[in-house]
Each structure stands twice: as structure tokens, then as C-alpha cells.
């Protein structure tokens, strides 16, 4: 067994929840992935996973490094990007994904993507190829 494998197993046993708890958290993630188009709340997610809100937040964060709310926002923004690129309007996208208002939606969208929903909707996917001359650093001889 390598040093890495030994350390990995130690970390797993010490920091990750038990397998039955992990399966509940995977269920919660699935619920968020599939139900983010409505106004799912933390209560709904917790109820669906048979966990208290406190446990859900704690275990979800330990497994994924994000709170359920943060993950829900990630999923909603990813869905919004797809919808906007397929021609859906900003207000319709906002409404279908259950954001409180277009202002909230626009603010979060800009924070995540760097541009407003309307600009994102119009923009082309084309980006100039980028590379950097880094190999030079590794061309030294003995």
C-alpha cells in the first residue's frame, strides 16, 4: 500500500460521514439536481433526505465542501446559462428557476459568470485561443 493510499484511508475514516449517511447526502444532491426548477427550500431537501436541517447542512458540507444552498445556487445558475443560450428570456428563466426577483437573479448571475443574464444571452462562445510560454522554464540543462 502506498503512502498516499494509507493517508487517504485515514482521512476517509476520520473526516467523512458513515456510508449510510453518505447515501442520504447523495440523495439530497440528487434532489437538488432534479428539483431546482421550483422553489425547493432547505426544508424540502432535508425532508426528502430524512435528515434534520442541521444535519443536512453539516453532512452535505463535509461531503461536497459547499452548503446545500450554495450547491442549489450552482445548479440553478448552470441551468440558467443553458436556458439563456437556447433563447429563453431573462424574466422567464428567472421565474422558471424560482428566483425571488429578476434583480436577485441578475445579481447572482453576474457574480457567478461575470456578466449580466442579458449580455450572456447575446454573447458568442468564441474566445481567442490562449497559451503562455512557460516551457522555457523547464529547458535548463544540468
Amino acid at each position: 500500500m502506498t503512502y498516499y493510499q494509507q493517508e487517504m484511508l485515514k482521512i476517509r475514516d476520520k473526516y467523512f460521514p458513515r456510508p449510510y449517511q453518505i447515501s442520504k447526502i447523495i440523495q439530497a444532491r440528487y434532489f437538488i439536481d432534479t428539483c431546482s426548477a421550483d422553489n425547493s427550500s432547505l426544508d424540502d431537501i432535508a425532508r426528502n433526505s430524512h435528515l434534520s436541517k442541521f444535519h443536512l447542512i453539516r453532512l452535505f458540507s463535509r461531503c461536497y465542501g459547499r452548503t446545500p444552498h450554495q450547491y442549489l445556487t450552482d445548479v440553478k445558475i448552470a441551468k440558467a446559462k443553458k436556458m439563456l443560450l437556447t433563447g429563453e428570456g431573462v424574466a422567464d428563466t428567472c421565474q422558471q428557476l424560482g428566483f425571488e426577483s429578476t434583480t436577485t437573479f441578475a445579481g447572482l448571475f453576474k457574480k457567478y459568470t461575470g456578466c449580466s443574464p442579458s449580455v450572456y444571452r447575446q454573447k458568442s462562445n468564441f474566445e481567442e485561443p490562449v497559451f503562455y510560454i512557460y516551457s522555457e522554464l523547464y529547458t535548463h540543462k544540468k
Partner: protein
Amino acid sequence: MKIRLTSLLVNDQDKALKFYTETLGFVKKTEIPMGEHKWLTVVSAEEQDGVELVLEPISFVPAQVYQKALFEAGIPATAFNVADVEKEYERLTKANVLFSVSPTPMGPVKLVVFNDTCGNNIQLFQVLQRQKD
């Protein structure tokens, strides 16, 4: 500022290109001759507009020491996401890839570690999904 590239030190660029394209299934994106070495990047076949992996030459001696130490400890130089880690393990084992870690659950992911033949351990991980009803 955007993340467009990530770099992996390899001890033989040609061998690495062959392994990363023919064995792993990545696609060559750029190749620019630069004397003894080259600027060489590959991308995922499923995401060819995604982040490019730079297969970086490693003539710089301290970098060789670093790479060797990581390799001997079994520590992965980087990790790639796959949909089904068991399936990749089976496919790559058939292609004679050597694994130091067989499929192992680690919290909400399952992972393996293999030798890329160019001085690195590489980890594959699958984010586990809900079991079908």
C-alpha cells in the same frame, strides 16, 4: 482572470502524447515546436473547448526531484473526472495500465490511481450518484 490551462510535468513528451491520446482518449489540441521541447496540450474528447492540459517537459532538475518524490509516495500529480470509475478501471487494466489504488470509495466519490508511464500517478474520480430505484 480565467483558468484555461493546467500543467503536468512529463519526462517524455512524445510518450506522454501517445499515452494521453491513445490510452486515455484525450485529444491533442496544440503542438508548437520549441527546440528540444514543444508546447503541447491535450483536451478531453468530451469537452474539447474545456481546460487544456499542458504536457510540460521536465529538464529542470529540481522539478525532477519533486516529481520522483510524489511518484514514490503514490501521490497523484492531478485528477480527472469520469462518469464510471469501475468501467475505466476495467478498460485501462486491459490496456496494461498499472494501478496503485483499485476502485475505492472515498466519501461521496469513488477513485483509482494509476501510473501514466511518464513519471506521474494520476487519479480518476467519479462523483457517486443515487442508486436507481
